[in-house]
């Protein structure tokens, strides 16, 4: 092995001593490689001491914020479904009858269990037919105010 090859292995030797016996034997007899190894060890130690991992007590608040953020993301996922439903509603309002005649599920995707349950609950007795009223009701219950306003659903009257 050349000095260049050995010097490229030095981080591995520092992190896992004993894994490269041939290289380690070379370092013992090579001033250049030994110097490079000493420099890297010092650098690693310097980084470890001056920029350590934070302690548990420093990060409790951050962990709670993060867990809350992920909860919010979970809640937001059904909104993706709501947005898709909004698009269908808009289409169905423009072209009445289209949505009511669908024989297949309108949307399939990897929904959260709650959303999946909602989709199934919409599939009442008519196979996978979803009425405009059902879509509107779903949106009124689940979509954000902006979407409801955009679609003019604030005063929506259920017809059936």
């Amino acid at each position, binding site marked *: 092995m050349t000095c260049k090859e050995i010097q*490229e292995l030095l*981080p*591995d030797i*520092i*992190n*896992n001593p004993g894994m490269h016996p041939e290289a380690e034997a070379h370092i013992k007899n090579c001033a250049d490689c030994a110097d*490079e190894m000493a*420099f*890297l060890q*010092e*650098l*690693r*130690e*310097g*980084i*470890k*001491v*001056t*920029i*350590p*991992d*934070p*302690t*548990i007590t420093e*990060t409790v608040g*951050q*962990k709670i*914020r*993060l*867990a809350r*953020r*992920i909860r919010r*993301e*979970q809640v937001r996922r059904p909104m993706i479904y709501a947005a898709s439903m909004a698009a269908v509603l808009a289409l169905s309002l423009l072209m009445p009858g289209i949505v009511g005649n669908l024989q297949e599920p309108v949307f399939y995707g990897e929904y*959260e*269990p709650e959303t999946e349950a909602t989709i199934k609950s919409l599939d009442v007795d008519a196979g996978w037919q979803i009425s405009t009223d059902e879509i509107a009701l779903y949106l009124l219950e689940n979509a954000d105010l902006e979407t409801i306003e955009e679609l003019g659903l604030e005063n929506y009257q259920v017809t059936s």
Partner: protein
Amino acid sequence: MKENRKHIIDKWIVQYYDAVLGMALRLTGNRDDAEDCAQDVFVKAWKKYSSFRGDSHPLAWLKTITYNTCYNHLNRNKSKTWNEMDENRHSKEQIPEGQKRGFDPKHLEVLSVGERAVLLARIYDGLSFKEVAATLNTSENSAKVSYHNAIKKLRKVML
């Protein structure tokens, strides 16, 4: 399965958040950026949980996401400086005595974003050049060049 994901990510936050934040701190040199990146890492992990291969260690997977997230973050915000390494807490006095050359976190500032990421991944987190290349979306050869440049630059400032 989805319930599991929720519980697993919660467990990972408790177990690995500090390690991920530490990595982000070393990469960004800035507490605010590091916190933003660390939080993004777990949100990404939650979103892409289905691509996690159970046979690898979760921290190894999170490390990959951390390097990638910080690297992209730093490339987007190149003007940001290495501004707070909390000098009161991590003061030079904590470096063991007898060291010929003193390392200061600010020394890492002389490195380009790529050089810093490769150096830390290689010497601190023990990633192979192959893993570094895959993580940072570069070639193995280019990772080696960045590594050698980083060492050369640090030798200069630390002497």
